């Protein structure tokens, strides 16, 4: 019962909001209440998972082995908490000014429902269905605003991500063909007996699908153009919430279901990750458009997740999960702030920039620290120096952007007055700072999630 609660709350709110006019404030507030309810339910679920291990539920009262299984482990619990909290911030951000589109709150709720389902399901085809629900609502969210730029970018985003979905569907069909089941737990146990050559093909299909989502080099080509044109709130949802599908998918399918293939592909992941880190950072430095810098920064940051995954083991997986969480927080904060100007927004942006560069007291410091730790565990000098160099580059591009956006225009923007959205952004920045000052619970949760992945599925 507990497992289905976040999914049920968001789903029902989404259905309730569909016929309503989302331009009215109270409709958005109903949506926010729904997300808050789902966030509290996820918190309840997460606390129980952290304390007493994974929770399970068979949908529709079917027998074990027939019914679709919903399953919450520490990894899924972290991700649903993150997704619900960040979507709540995004919706609150839009609540502050009159909306232009009536479908916005309902679409955010459908996206939340899709994500909650995706992070909680224990069945690969069910994963695909929730994945499509989340993606389809995001296709429309990207076109939010309906201007020429938004529509154009939504089209690119839709076509590219549909290709990713097709690859993933192929991977799911392949997994079913070689193991005869769709249950993640049973696949993980049966996959060892399958001929490795065929599993590698499936692993590559799944890897490509999630890399497209995450925007890793060389699957990043769509990302900068899309992030440049769309609204700040859509960009925040894409890079803060939707990219989590990519990182969750890589961690879940790589570390949990296909660990042997992950190990086999580790050198490739390391090279692609390094290429992502440098390519993203260098191009971010060369750009002047704030949104474009952030887009390339996403590519660069996604590379770190891949590198940590390639190290593997408890330390590597902990670093990957931690970094994915921190990156989602940073990018949501920065993209939401990118629409604002003034000293308050400048402070929020600076906190985000500190976090991306990995400087204390922002939470990004612990992400970088975990990466260092995994580099030292892997005993790789190249890895450690790469993280240092990548951090230095990210420091350069983040502060150049800060300078350009908040110092250069300070004079004329001060007359613009306070934006009603400032409060939301500052609250999120405060969260990033608080997590950086008291990171114990986050660190413990990621360690638990990594241990859950390594222990097989208990």
């Amino acid at each position: 019962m507990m497992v289905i609660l976040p999914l049920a709350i968001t789903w029902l709110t989404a259905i309730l909001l569909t016929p309503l006019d989302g331009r009215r404030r109270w409709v958005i507030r109903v949506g926010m209440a729904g997300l808050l309810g789902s966030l509290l339910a996820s918190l309840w679920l997460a606390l129980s998972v952290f304390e007493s291990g994974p929770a399970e539920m068979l949908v529709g009262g079917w027998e074990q082995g027939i019914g679709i299984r919903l399953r919450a482990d520490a990894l899924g619990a972290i991700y649903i908490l993150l997704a619900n909290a960040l979507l709540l911030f995004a919706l609150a951000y839009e609540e502050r000014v009159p909306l232009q589109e009536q479908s916005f709150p309902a679409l955010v709720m459908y996206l939340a429902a899709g994500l909650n389902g995706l992070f909680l399901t224990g069945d690969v085809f069910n994963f695909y269905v929730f994945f499509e629900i989340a993606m389809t609502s995001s296709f429309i969210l990207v076109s939010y605003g309906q201007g020429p730029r938004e529509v154009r970018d939504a089209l690119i985003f839709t076509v590219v991500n549909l290709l990713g979905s097709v690859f993933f569907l192929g991977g799911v069909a392949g997994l079913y063909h070689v193991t005869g089941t769709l249950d993640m737990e049973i696949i993980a146990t049966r996959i060892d007996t399958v001929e490795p050559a065929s599993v590698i093909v499936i692993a590559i299909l799944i890897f490509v699908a999630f890399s497209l989502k995450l925007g890793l080099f060389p699957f990043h080509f769509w990302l900068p153009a899309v992030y440049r044109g769309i609204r700040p709130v859509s960009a925040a949802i894409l890079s803060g919430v939707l990219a989590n599908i990519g990182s969750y998918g890589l961690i879940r399918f790589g570390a949990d279901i296909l660990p042997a293939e992950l190990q086999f592909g580790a050198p490739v992941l390391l090279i692609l990750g390094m290429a992502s880190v440098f390519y993203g950072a260098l191009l971010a430095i060369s750009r002047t458009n704030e949104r474009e810098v952030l887009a390339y920064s996403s590519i660069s940051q996604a590379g770190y997740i891949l590198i940590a995954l390639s190290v593997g083991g408890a330390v590597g997986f902990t670093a990957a999960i931690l970094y994915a969480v921190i990156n989602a927080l940073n990018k949501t904060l920065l993209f939401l702030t990118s629409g604002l100007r003034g000293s308050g927004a400048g402070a929020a942006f600076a906190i985000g920039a500190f976090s991306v560069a990995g400087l204390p007291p922002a939470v990004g410091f612990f992400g970088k620290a975990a990466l260092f730790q995994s580099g030292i565990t892997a005993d790789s000098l190249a890895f450690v120096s790469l993280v240092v160099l990548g951090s230095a580059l990210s420091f350069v591009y983040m502060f150049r952007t800060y300078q350009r956006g908040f110092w250069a225009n300070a004079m004329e923007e001060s007359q613009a007055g306070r934006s009603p959205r400032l409060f939301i952004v500052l609250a999120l920045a405060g969260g990033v700072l608080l997590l950086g000052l008291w990171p114990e619970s986050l660190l413990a949760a990621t360690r638990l999630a990594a241990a859950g992945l390594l222990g097989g599925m208990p």
Partner: protein
Amino acid sequence: MNVILSLAVATLFGVGAFLLLKRDLIRVIMGMILISNAAILFTVAAGLSRGGAPIVPLPEGTNFSDPLVQALALTAIVINFGVTILLLVLVYQVWVTHHSIDQKTLREAEENELAEFEKHRRGL
């Protein structure tokens, strides 16, 4: 049977990929539809057993085809319908905002916007 199915999947995917690279957006969407259908056919082909229709009561001792992949394919087809309609709506929106569905025009519009942005930035 396997050879025929894989040839069919490959042809659908190849033709779809070819169309995807066209300038005309309607062709791009046709390409997307073909590629999605290649994936659905692949799903059906991934069935573990082949034979007659799996309708209960099953006659004793005969082979029947795996009903699960058919359920999966059906779900994927339904998802595809929805997404295809969404794509068509997006193309219509492109037509409304740009008065063209040629990717070349879209590219020009994008370049113009970038040039505007540069001008604005230098002006500051």
